[in-house]
């Protein structure tokens, strides 16, 4: 039973890891995106909706194993579009990043509820068909590899130094010939795409359902994980696994018949609060985080 719990924790950790790694990339470049929750929601809807449309409305012939991949790509595409909007607001327009992020969350909450109703004609709940489902362990492995890759990118390559310079000291980066806003925009787009893929994972791999509340706070747990990991993708693996463990534990306790369902569902949120409160003192965010860069 315990080994099953640990495997379940890995699956529960995956969306948080994907979104957190993306957000670390974004925040290391100096942009905050608190719209992760909304991006997850949009991604969770976009993938299944796109492949359903392609299969039934367009009548496209696609080899079966490709459907989930197409779904994930569709979600990533939506993430890229939203990331471009948020990135553009946060860089060239020097807009308010927090308000923009909140707008993404509010818009997504409405758009997903509306989209499920408008497309499938059902209120807020749609099963994902078997042919569109992806193997959650494949995505979980991808997420782990991606975290290691992002760590390597950020700390062992020249590009990583450039990205981090934009987040720490954009003035100097600019004087060294770096196009700060362009780097930030691209980092935001990449981070948003990953958050949307995390959403696709929820709907087509992990939960096999699209609902209007499918993200259930995971976007914000991912934000908490960024702080916990001190903006380091490798530590984010540990963080995501701890958060995932509590998520899985809540379901595990439920199947074991321990405690009431509602109490066990609170576990991940309470754990997140306690963990963030515990590590907050030593968190060291990028110095220029959330501050738009303007040439003097």
């Amino acid at each position, binding site marked *: 039973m315990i080994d099953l719990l640990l495997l379940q924790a890995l699956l529960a950790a995956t969306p948080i890891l994907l979104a957190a790694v993306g957000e670390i990339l974004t925040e290391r470049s100096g942009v905050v995106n*608190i719209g992760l929750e909304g991006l997850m929601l949009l991604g969770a809807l976009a993938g299944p909706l796109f492949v359903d449309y392609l299969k039934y409305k367009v009548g496209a012939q696609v080899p079966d194993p490709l459907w989930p991949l197409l779904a994930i790509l569709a979600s990533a595409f939506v993430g890229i579009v939203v990331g471009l*909007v948020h990135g553009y*607001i946060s860089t060239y*327009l*020097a*807009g*308010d990043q*927090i*308000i*923009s992020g*909140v*707008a*993404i*969350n*509010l*818009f*997504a*909450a*409405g*758009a997903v*509820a*509306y989209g499920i*109703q*408008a*497309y499938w004609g059902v209120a807020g709940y749609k099963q994902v068909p078997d042919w569109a489902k992806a193997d959650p362990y494949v995505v979980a492995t991808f997420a782990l590899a991606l975290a290691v890759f992002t760590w390597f990118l950020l700390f062992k390559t020249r590009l990583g130094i450039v990205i981090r310079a934009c987040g720490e000291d954009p003035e100097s980066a600019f004087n060294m010939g770096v196009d700060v806003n362009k780097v930030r925009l691209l980092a935001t787009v990449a981070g948003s795409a990953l958050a949307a893929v995390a959403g696709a994972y929820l709907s087509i791999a992990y939960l096999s359902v699209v609902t*209007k509340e499918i993200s*259930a*706070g995971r976007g*914000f*747990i991912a*934000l*908490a994980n960024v*702080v916990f990991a001190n903006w380091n993708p490798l530590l984010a693996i540990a963080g995501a696994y701890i958060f995932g463990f509590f998520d899985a534990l809540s379901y595990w306790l439920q199947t074991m018949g321990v405690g*009431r369902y*509602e*109490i066990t*569902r*609170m576990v991940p*949120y*309470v754990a*997140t*609060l306690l963990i*963030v*409160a515990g590590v*907050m*003192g030593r968190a060291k965010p990028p110095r220029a985080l959330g*501050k*738009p860069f303007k040439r003097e």
Partner: protein
Amino acid sequence: MRFQTASAVNIAAALVMAFAVGTALMWISGYDPLSSYSAMLITPLSDWVYFLSALAFSAPMALTGLTFSLGLRAGLFNIGAEGQVYMGALGAVAAAYLLGGPAVLPLAFAMGLILAVLWSSVPAVLKIWRGVNEVISTIMMNWVAYWVTIMAVSTAFANPLQPEESVKVPEPARLTPLVPGTDFTAAVPIAYAAAFLVLIFLKYSVWGYRISVSGYNPIAAKSYGIKPERAVLVAFALGSVTAGLAGVLQVVARPPSYSLARNLANVYGLGFDGITAAMLGRGHPVGVVLASIFLGIMQEGARHMQIEAGTPYEFVKVIQGLIILFLALQLLRK
């Protein structure tokens, strides 16, 4: 941190752009934009009953809008109104469970407000004591509140006669419609009066001044002998009073059920609507009330839109998100 407020031009532009994008979205998904917008915005104004119902919708949004506005004043991004509304409603239901008769009403206010303030004290204390970002802590508290309330209304406070809702507020303790045949209860004047009090508080009280100064510039505040931590605490506490009030009123002053739905449908999302109201209302109590009336009209209109044009109710939330997005686009940090 400093948040900028929008100008009237910003707001007008955001509305125009949001409705334009909304038109495109409706067109793509095969609904008629013209009849939808007409049902959403004109129908609620065409009949007194509809308009009073729109005002009834505006009351809780004005109150949660005040929560968010008070946070902004103190430099906080307090999105915990959602959970505090649940707590307010839970307190009211607990009062209905514990007592009978008219005594339920004062107890509902007392318990609802106390629970909401207690709930907000967790992120407030974590912020002051550990520097925990309030965005994360309030969202986590919202989810805990969600499950606490769901559990309470499906166990101890369940209604044996109606499985869909909690125990009801007894008739003598209800705030019934002031205009018979509508949803317009004392909740509306109470909410607007609360906005007026918050306005007086912010403008004329010492603490209101302290909150504004420490939100504007915490370092300067310190040099004037103001403790920003205390301003944070006061802003959180006062914000939770208005949010808790919204929750209590949804139970004691909202026909026809006078109870809390098992799935929390009659309180769900009110905290987040308040963010929209606060942003549109420029964080100013009067603006928040006006914005909440506008949102109330949209909410009431959504019902008509679904019936008259067949466009899903949820569409108004899409529009609201777009409005805020286009506002963010214009709020340039200087």
